[in-house]
């Protein structure tokens, strides 16, 4: 009977998740926009309801009448004045803007409502239950929520298929440019869609708030639940959303039945299993999950693994081939006539003096421990870590077109692997590279999961993976559980010597990492990677091994983040799952890359140095500091997507790490063929 009860509870829980997912799915369907602030918006609604209840003493049910319409207005305004600026641009823009928004919202809530948990009282209906049969009772409130979810989904279904508004939304989704020609003000259509989406998520936030306690950090969970529901159910299928919610609800309740702490983790794991077996969703139009689908997936694994090893050898071959070629080749523009001779150069302006300058900087940094105090050394290691992390995020997003919000998974894994290794007698200094390597190895199977998704969905998918790893690690008593552990093996070391040694290792690793990224991007594989960023299908059709190139980049990013995590542990001597797997780390990486310049090697370094300075001076301001960071990220993503270094190169054409090719003719007219700095250049169109 417990099990029957669990299953009924799971199904009803699906109603909440379907409500979370509806708006996410609608916004993606109409605008291809993955709204990372979706969960935060639900939370804003719940907190507004709390404030209303506290201020007026009204019932939580009545707040729906105020908050939901207000949310629709907020959604409309948000789309009109902020998100429309991201439509039609590279997907990275909308991901960054909505992520910045999520950071702002959760920190403002933290400031206004403190970190305490809050709840909403559903009144008598909240405690009443329905007697189904024998000893099986279910809560009335859960039943009501489920019915509301069904009603919302039916209403949406009706609107999309039968009304003019729905028709305009589908037309704008199919082809926004042609919709304009038909007299459709697409930006207004988008704003309407977002208004509906935010209204539904406000509904979800308040209902879930009456169901479970929440705090200003719950928004991320809400987002992940909604996202998992959408993916499990299958995109573009409204009833699939309900089914996906039910599957997730069942996974969570059954998981919690087995071990009370494992409910959310079970949900993440079921999501990952669906991703492997049926990435298009269980209930997408292709039909339900079948045994043959499962068989296909299992048979596919050796094939993809084989492709991977084949790719490795091919990569090695092409590396050898390109090493044999001179870096500056002479080629005849028109064979057979005496046209101008075009030279292909790889060095950019300022590369040589810049390179010498960089070497000098590294040399100065190398002798620094002899003169500087321990505080400076400690901070510099933190800065090196930040440079590494930012460079790795940039490698993925700026060159590989993969926006990850889950790199904290590898950072945390690197730290915890080092902890594990030293606990088992490995020397710390051997342990750091070893931890990085092991993290890289773990990244290979992870990539097979993550690469099932694209764009904004890849971003959230990697986040789910990081959360799953976090939940597993935080429940492992051997690794210190939720409260973390200390690196005890270094306690006998002389503190000054330890810091200096950590510093030198960090410096060596950061130089190696940036040099490695530089070398990778100059290789054929790097060129292929840049092509993938601009158009995955076009790159594939030209013979770029898309999966292989992306996987190499992913692996290197994991290595780098793993090394950064291990270094942090050696530097700070303690680690805790909450901070080692904190998504804020990725927010920092994104921020550094945005300031410095996406898609350049110099950008993340400059961004990390600037960000480190900002953090050093202003992080004492706590929450408002993060709000300001989020706002700055939004402004940078929309107004200055090429970052500071992008501005510098546009003016001076200086390139310290030239990875492109330049064509020059004898009359010094330089035609640049360097890959575009901003992904996916777009044609300027009539503003409207």
């Amino acid at each position, binding site marked *: 009977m417990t099990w029957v009860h669990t299953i009924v509870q799971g199904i009803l829980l699906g109603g909440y998740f379907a409500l979370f997912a509806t708006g996410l799915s609608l916004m993606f369907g109409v605008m291809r926009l993955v709204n990372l602030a979706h969960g935060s918006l639900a939370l804003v609604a719940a907190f507004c309801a709390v404030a209303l209840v506290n201020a007026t003493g009204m019932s939580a049910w009545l707040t729906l009448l105020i908050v939901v319409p207000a949310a629709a207005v907020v959604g409309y305004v948000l789309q009109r004045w902020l998100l429309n600026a991201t439509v039609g641009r590279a997907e990275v823009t909308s991901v960054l803007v909505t992520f910045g928004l999520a950071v702002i919202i959760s920190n403002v809530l933290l400031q206004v409502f403190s970190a305490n948990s809050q709840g909403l009282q559903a009144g008598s209906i909240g405690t009443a239950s329905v007697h189904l049969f024998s000893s099986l009772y279910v809560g009335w409130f859960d039943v009501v929520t489920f019915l509301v979810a069904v009603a919302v989904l039916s209403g949406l279904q009706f609107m999309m298929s039968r009304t003019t508004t729905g028709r305009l939304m*589908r*037309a704008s989704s199919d082809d926004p*440019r042609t919709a304009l020609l*038909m*007299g459709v*003000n697409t930006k207004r259509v988008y704003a309407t869609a977002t208004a509906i989406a935010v209204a539904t998520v406000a509904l979800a936030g308040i209902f879930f708030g009456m169901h479970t306690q929440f705090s200003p950090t719950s928004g991320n969970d809400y987002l992940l639940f909604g996202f998992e529901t959408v993916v499990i159910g299958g995109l573009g299928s409204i009833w699939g959303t309900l089914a996906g919610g039910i599957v997730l609800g069942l996974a969570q309740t059954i998981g919690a039945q087995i071990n009370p702490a494992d409910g959310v983790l079970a949900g993440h794991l079921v999501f990952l299993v669906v991703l492997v077996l049926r990435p298009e969703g269980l209930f997408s139009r292709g039909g339900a999950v079948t045994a043959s689908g499962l068989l296909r997936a299992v048979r596919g694994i050796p094939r993809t693994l084989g492709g991977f090893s084949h790719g490795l050898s091919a990569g090695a071959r092409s590396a050898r081939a390109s090493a044999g070629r001179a870096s500056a080749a002479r080629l005849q523009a028109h064979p057979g006539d005496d046209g101008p001779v075009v030279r292909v150069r790889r060095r950019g302006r300022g590369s040589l003096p810049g390179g010498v300058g960089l070497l000098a900087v590294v040399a100065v940094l190398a002798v620094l421990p002899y003169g500087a105090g321990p505080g400076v050394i400690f901070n510099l290691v933190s800065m090196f870590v930040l440079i590494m992390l930012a460079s790795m995020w940039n490698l993925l997003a700026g060159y590989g077109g993969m926006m990850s919000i889950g790199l904290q998974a590898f950072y945390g894994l690197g730290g915890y692997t080092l902890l594990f290794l030293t606990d088992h007698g490995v020397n710390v200094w051997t342990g750091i590279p070893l931890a990085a390597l092991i993290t890289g190895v773990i990244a290979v199977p992870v990539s097979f999961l993550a690469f099932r998704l694209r764009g904004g969905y890849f971003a959230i998918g990697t986040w789910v993976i990081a959360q799953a790893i976090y939940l597993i690690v935080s429940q492992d008593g051997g690794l210190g559980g939720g409260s973390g552990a200390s690196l005890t093996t270094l306690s006998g070391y002389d503190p000054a010597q330890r810091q200096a040694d950590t510093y030198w290792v960090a410096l060596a690793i950061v130089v190696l990492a940036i040099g490695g990224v530089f070398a990778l991007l100059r290789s054929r594989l790097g060129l292929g990677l840049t092509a993938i960023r601009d158009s995955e299908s076009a790159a594939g059709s030209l013979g770029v091994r898309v999966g292989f190139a992306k996987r190499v980049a992913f692996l290197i990013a994991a290595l780098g983040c793993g090394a950064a995590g291990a270094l942090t542990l050696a530097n700070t001597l303690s680690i805790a799952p909450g901070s080692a797997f904190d998504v804020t780390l990725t927010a920092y990486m994104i921020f550094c890359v945005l300031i410095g310049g996406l898609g350049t090697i110099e950008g993340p370094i400059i961004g990390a140095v600037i960000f480190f300075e900002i953090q050093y001076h202003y992080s004492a301001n706590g929450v408002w500091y993060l709000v300001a960071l989020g706002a700055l990220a939004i402004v940078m993503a929309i107004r200055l997507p090429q970052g500071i270094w992008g501005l510098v190169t546009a003016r001076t054409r200086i390139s310290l790490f030239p990875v492109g090719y330049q064509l020059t003719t004898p009359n010094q007219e330089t035609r640049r063929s360097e890959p575009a700095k901003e992904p996916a250049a777009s044609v300027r169109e009539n503003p409207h």
Partner: protein
Amino acid sequence: MILSVEEASAHYGKFQALFGIDLRVPEGQTVAVIGANGAGKSTLLNMIAGLVSPSDGRVVFEGADLRGVPAYERPALGIAMVPEGRKLFPSLTVRENLQIGGYKARPGPWNLDAVYELFPNIARHQDRKSGSLSGGEAQAVAIGRALMSNPRLLLLDEVSLGLAPVVVKALYAALADIKAGGVTVLLVEQDVSQALAVADHVYCLLEGRAVLDGAAAGLSMDQVTYAYFGATR
């Protein structure tokens, strides 16, 4: 003069696609713009429809400068476009595509029934998703969709592209009916003989400049060939 384009230039970033184009379309006539790939024909139509802003010069429709009028407000003024490649909304049915075309309709003779009467073969498929139509049927829907707004000026971009000659012939036959209703037509064609056959007046673009214009009847094939390719054979 229902439409005049005056000294208009257009840029895509740093690339200049049109250089000071002058073009006049008298009411009730059919004007054709011909030229090779990349001559700027589609840019010209997109500029008139409002998808591309002129970087210099202006577009005047019925005496009013269209500067600052967004594309989505132009159908209500009486400008409708059949875009290159048809660009139907694939997840919408044929009828829904036509309904979107009539979203900002002016009063006039065209409605669903009138379009189905003009193209009886698409009436049979009105509940089918437009993504499943053949090329000729899709082009008919695209033309019908533009007519649904009751335009005064119909812009046709490469109607014959990728269609069998017999289908092209049928579509151009329908054009005669459309013109009979008083619609002015500005069309872009790569098929020179087709353009010369239907148009009253022809402009020839070469690398973003209007290099030749004249009454369709008065142009010799040699003149057109020279203007089209920028060289004599």
